[in-house]
């Protein structure tokens, strides 16, 4: 006996071009991570001594902020898909708030480390730390612009485009999953 229910049609969320960019970015970061992991494993004692200067709870808090922002932008996409544009806008604005919280937290962490005497040139670990968190910070800044575009689209009935909202969300999730990797490699690894 065959089921009469038709399966949910498959679709690419957002513009396929954004997915090409996401995969490209993911592989570029894989290259950064690989160089870091090899350098780290060659000189574990030095890397671990410097890693101990980082506050693990700050890294975990940053991760929770970005995971929550990913959740809210996923809710934004779903609400927009169902035509609940007020809820979608609220969730997009919440995502922006979490993004701003992340940026402030990162700047405070950098300022604290620099005040303690740990800079880009202190040692190899801190060079990687400032490089990886810095390049990710740039992606968060671009993400803020992207989220602002999503809010503008959602607020104006004449501009609304579900594809564009999904494209913006796809970019934002990329910022999140790249941080998930950075957190594991800089703060948790031994």
């Amino acid at each position: 006996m065959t089921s009469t229910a038709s399966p949910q049609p498959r679709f690419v969320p957002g513009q396929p071009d954004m997915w090409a960019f996401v995969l490209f970015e993911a592989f570029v970061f894989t290259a950064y991570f690989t160089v870091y992991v090899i350098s780290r494993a060659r000189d574990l004692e030095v890397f671990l001594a410097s890693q101990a200067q980082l506050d693990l709870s700050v890294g975990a808090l940053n991760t929770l902020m970005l995971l929550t922002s990913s959740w809210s932008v996923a809710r934004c996409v779903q609400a927009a898909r169902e035509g609940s544009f007020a809820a979608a806008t609220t969730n997009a604005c919440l995502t922006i708030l979490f993004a701003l919280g992340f940026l402030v937290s990162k700047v405070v962490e950098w300022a604290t480390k620099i005040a303690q005497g740990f800079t880009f040139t202190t040692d190899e670990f801190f060079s990687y730390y400032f490089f990886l968190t810095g390049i990710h910070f740039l992606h968060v800044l671009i993400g803020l612009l992207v989220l602002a575009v999503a809010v503008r689209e959602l607020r104006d009935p004449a501009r609304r485009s579900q594809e564009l909202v999904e494209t913006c969300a796809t970019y934002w999730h990329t910022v999140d999953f790249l941080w998930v990797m950075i957190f594991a490699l800089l703060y948790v690894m031994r």
Partner: protein
Amino acid sequence: MNARFEKRLAAVWLGLSAITLVQLGVGSIDGRDGLAPNAAIAASAIAIALFKVRLIFREFMEVRHAPVLLGRLTDLWVVLTGAILLGGYLAGTTFAVD
């Protein structure tokens, strides 16, 4: 909002957050003053991070509803990155600085 989808997103967020708190706990086991090399923690940190990324791909980024090719490409990234990072760690320890 669709209640079932809403619950699923909340469950994924809860799971990802809980894993992050476990990572915080594991990372704090021996304090932060003298971190000791630990290959098991290093390997599990990479594996757990990639598991979280795959969840983000499939659930938040809706890859589970996307054409099969996109699912395969994202899985390829997860597997390749895991293999390269674990291999890199192994290679680095093999050619460690004296």
